[in-house]
């Protein structure tokens, strides 16, 4: 088959290389380990259980927000932005798959049974709400488009600051995942920042929406910078990032974006903790239970199913 033939009929091109193997027709069939063949040796200085807990934190952030962003499919104000939100969700889902797989390698005991032997599926579909380690910011409902872009700006700014530093992690797999993620998050943050400015610098209606988005998101900002014992311990070993140290960069970026739109930095108190605990401790809001019910229902109704 020539390249021109392949281009005119991608389906035939695939058929040609697959030699009639039906397993290849749909992406989504037979997902295999995204870390297949990666050297997964754990550095001797890193505690496997702690690294697994840390990878679940960063992986769950990405997984839960990816799920939220896909809710925009068929509902975004413009096709281009729907495609952007879906692409950002796909990047985050990819980061989540890598991180959940790394968690399972670092400590296989974190994986519940029920994923038909696929670690990332077990972690995504068969953990209970209190076992998720994402920050509460990620599980919040989307709200309107302004709320969604404000939340994404806050999240991408925090995560880009974290992954930039995490690229120097002593764990080579986490380091590699972070270095890839930096490139992706740079695009995510720019997209969200431009939308916040565009809305904030627009009609009174748009501006009031973005102000409401900021007021709704800001109570969950402080939680991003509360170090858990897992993070503090791993940061001391050079494997993780202490989130408290990310605050100056976060504040500078948000000041630049909000300043460009003449939007005030919100002055609202942080959301209450529950007995001193929050998302990183498995304490979540009601919003996560609905999200998980939808995300996990098919896998739980048909455990081990393939298609």
């Amino acid at each position, binding site marked *: 088959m020539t390249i021109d033939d392949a281009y005119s009929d991608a389906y035939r091109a695939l058929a040609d290389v697959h030699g009639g193997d039906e397993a*290849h027709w749909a992406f989504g069939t037979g997902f295999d380990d995204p870390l297949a063949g990666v050297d997964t040796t754990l550095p001797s200085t890193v505690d496997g259980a702690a690294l697994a807990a840390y990878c679940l934190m960063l992986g769950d952030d990405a997984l839960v927000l990816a799920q939220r962003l896909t809710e925009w499919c068929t509902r975004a104000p413009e096709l*281009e932005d729907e495609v952007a939100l879906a692409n950002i969700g796909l*990047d*985050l889902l990819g980061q989540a798959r890598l991180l959940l797989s790394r968690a399972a390698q670092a400590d296989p005991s974190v994986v519940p049974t029920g994923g038909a032997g696929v670690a990332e599926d077990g972690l995504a579909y068969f953990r209970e709400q209190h076992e998720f380690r994402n920050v509460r910011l990620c599980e919040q409902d989307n709200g309107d488009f302004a709320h969604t872009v404000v939340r994404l700006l806050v999240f991408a700014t925090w995560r880009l600051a974290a992954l930039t530093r995490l690229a120097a992690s002593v764990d*080579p797999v986490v380091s590699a995942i972070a270095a890839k993620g930096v*490139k992706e998050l740079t695009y995510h943050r720019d*997209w969200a920042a431009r939308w916040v400015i565009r809305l904030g610098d627009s009609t009174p209606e748009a501006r009031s929406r973005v102000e409401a988005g900021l007021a709704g998101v800001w109570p969950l900002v402080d939680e991003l910078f509360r170090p858990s014992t897992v993070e503090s311990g791993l940061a001391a070993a050079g494997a993780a990032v202490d989130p408290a140290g990310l605050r100056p960069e976060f504040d500078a970026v948000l000041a630049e974006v909000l300043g460009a739109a003449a939007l005030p930095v919100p002055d609202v108190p942080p959301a209450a903790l529950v007995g001193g605990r929050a998302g990183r401790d498995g304490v979540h809001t009601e919003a996560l239970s609905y999200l998980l019910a939808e995300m996990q229902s098919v896998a739980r109704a048909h455990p081990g199913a393939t298609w």
Partner: protein
Amino acid sequence: MSRVSTVDELARVRAVAAGVLDPELPVLTLADLGVLRDVRLTGAGGVVVTITPTYSGCPAMATMRADLTARLRAAGYADVEVRTVLSPPWTTDWISDAGRRVLAGHGVAPPGPAPRRPLGPVPLTLTRPARAVACPRCGSPDTEEISEFGPTACTAIRRCRACREPFEHVKEI
């Protein structure tokens, strides 16, 4: 086995792996896209191929693995292992000159040089960078970006102001 024949065989097996097409941009080979990182023979007559994903969420990795295995088996190598490598991260700078010509010939504008960033915090880019991207259809340099996110993770959408056609652009990472 003589040294020369091993070299010949390695060249042959490399050529087979290098010719596999990318599932999402099936005009480009995996070698031209820069995701094929290494091909080597094991002492026991097997082949080890190393690939890297373009984006973390690239949905085509499993298909690439299956395609490589199928092609190499068809070429007579029963023992094929496809490994993933994540580091260094893929960059559009790895798309070959031949790959760039093929993309342009099929209406997809190739990427410019990937951004080089100093160590430390990544700077914000609040206005879209002025990229010099010629229209792959009419050649006009007068094009504008519609969105940095396109139909695949790798592409942005642009529009030509001269011939009015929209087109995809492989965005720089």
